């Protein structure tokens, strides 16, 4: 297990945002995390990444205990994340954004900068080369490098955020709604990117509303509702799970969208009725 959560709780006053969630993320897998709005998905991410403190429960990244650590330490341990509402360093260039992501593994050059030690010029060149390689690996051309992050199109900003997260050389990458607000072709591109990163050996925890994306790309999916985990298993198990269908609102629509999501996967055959539905009416965000 790469990430292991054990009975993690976080309450805000009387609101049980995360209420005793246990979750295992296997090394090299893509773990999905779904649930209706307000189910506690983002809170769970914030708890894992140290933005919100645990109230009880434990979490480990392999053998490293995460509970009680501040966010920057957890990032240093190798959990990188993106944000639901993109948080780039907007007035810096795309390249600078990625370079800042290398902060943790960059040698402290304060004295060198003051001229008392030889300047690590080689390091600098190396980092810039790495940064361009990272931009390329998320599908951004190198011409994007000198552009300010705020001027990039929406889809590219999402990709840049992923490149910045990858600059940490994370063990686990948490994507918080990476496809939110994207059009179908951008979503397809994002899906391919996620699969490619995973094929390179990166473990990914994917949170999204888009059933088609989550069901299509993940090997295991956990479902949260009102802070509790109500199901965990393969996409097929989860989408046919009676509690999930009952609890996760809007029965007809939701069920249909789950079925068509399965039909979208290569080998799983969907029931005839669902497959006849138009795809555009079924994806729910």
């Amino acid at each position, binding site marked *: 297990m790469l990430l292991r959560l054990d009975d993690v709780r976080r309450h805000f006053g009387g609101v049980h945002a995360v209420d005793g969630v246990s979750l295992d993320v296997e090394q090299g897998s893509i773990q999905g995390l779904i649930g209706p709005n307000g189910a506690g998905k983002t809170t769970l991410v914030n708890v894992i*990444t*140290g*933005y919100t403190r645990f109230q009880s429960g434990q979490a480990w990244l392999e053998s490293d205990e995460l509970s009680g650590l*501040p*966010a*920057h*330490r957890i*990032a*240093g341990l190798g959990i*990188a*994340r993106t*944000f639901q509402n993109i*948080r*780039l*360093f*907007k*007035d*810096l*260039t795309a*390249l*600078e954004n990625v*370079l*800042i*992501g290398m*902060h*943790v593994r*960059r*040698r*402290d*050059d*304060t004295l*060198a*900068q*003051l*001229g008392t030690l030889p*300047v690590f*010029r080689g390091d*600098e060149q190396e980092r*810039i080369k790495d940064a361009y390689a990272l931009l390329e690996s998320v599908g951004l051309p190198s011409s994007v490098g*000198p*552009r*300010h992050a705020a001027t990039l199109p929406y889809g590219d900003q999402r990709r840049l955020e992923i490149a*910045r*997260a990858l*600059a*940490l050389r994370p063990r686990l990458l948490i994507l918080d709604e990476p496809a939110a607000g994207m059009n179908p072709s951008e979503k397809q591109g994002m899906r391919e990117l996620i699969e490619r990163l995973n094929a390179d050996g990166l473990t990914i925890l994917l949170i999204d509303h888009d059933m088609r994306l989550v069901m299509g790309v993940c090997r295991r999916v956990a479902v949260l509702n009102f802070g509790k985990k109500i199901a965990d298993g393969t996409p097929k198990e989860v989408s046919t799970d009676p509690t999930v269908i009952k609890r996760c609102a809007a029965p007809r629509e939701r069920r249909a969208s789950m079925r068509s999501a399965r039909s979208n996967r290569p080998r799983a055959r969907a029931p005839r009725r669902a497959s006849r539905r138009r795809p555009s009416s079924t994806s729910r965000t």
Partner: protein
Amino acid sequence: MDFFIQLFSDPIGFWNSHTLLISQIGINGIVATSMFLVLYSGQLSLAAPGFMAIGAYTSVLMELYWHTPVVLNVAVAVILAGIVGLLVGLPVLRLRGVFLAIATIGFVEALRLGVILNVPITGEGLGLQHEADPLGGVPIILVSLVMVVFVVWRLTKGRLGSAWSAIRQDEIAALSQGIHVARYKMIAFILSALIASYAGALEAHLNFFVDPGDSQYGVTRAVQILTFAVLGGTGFVIGPVVGALIVTLLPYIFEGAGDYINIIAGIFLIAVIIFRPQGIVGRGGLAIVRPAWWPRSRARAPSPG
């Protein structure tokens, strides 16, 4: 106009007749650099006059009572300001934006009204008289200015500087990149305290008199220092120094305006803010109005060498 004519026609005479002005520009430049540091790391801190007061009073009091050498006095003053910076920073740096500004103003006013004007040893409202000494010489001030600007410029190019940029842009995103936000903000705050107190100590030795007035160590001074930084531009170390130069020279630039000088100077400042919101030294270089055919400067990596 005479002022600028003399600058070019008779530089030596200009130097001799305006030594005090040149020194003041140098000192304002150093303080502006201290302001730059906090703004560069995303903190709207107006504490600089407080640290200047610590620098001025500590060094002058040591000289008056213990007759210790000036270099030691200044060193002790700077270290003391660093310690005070740490103690003030611990509670205050949790605040952001306007709230930080108000808290630091609170520090400045508490120091001036609560300590300086209340403790007999500081001379209270009368200030301190002392003998000026060679440290007040222009060369030392100008050399200090160059060194401070150089050090801060190099720091902004290194790992520290890239962390500060990240924090300025988005603290939450900076955390997700493994940057210890609280530590780097504290480093910037303490460094700016050290620089401000150094400037304060130099300034005290420039004059024969340490004046506890509002325009020296109070909010008025804080606003003036902020004006240096905003006018000059905070993207680049040299910006606030240029801002300090221009603001200090305003009375000479608008000499011809006579009684209307304050109005004209105010209009000038407003015009700069409107037409050049990134400051006079913005990312696009020194030009206030750039012709369309002028090559745009390309954005570069945060730490070229």
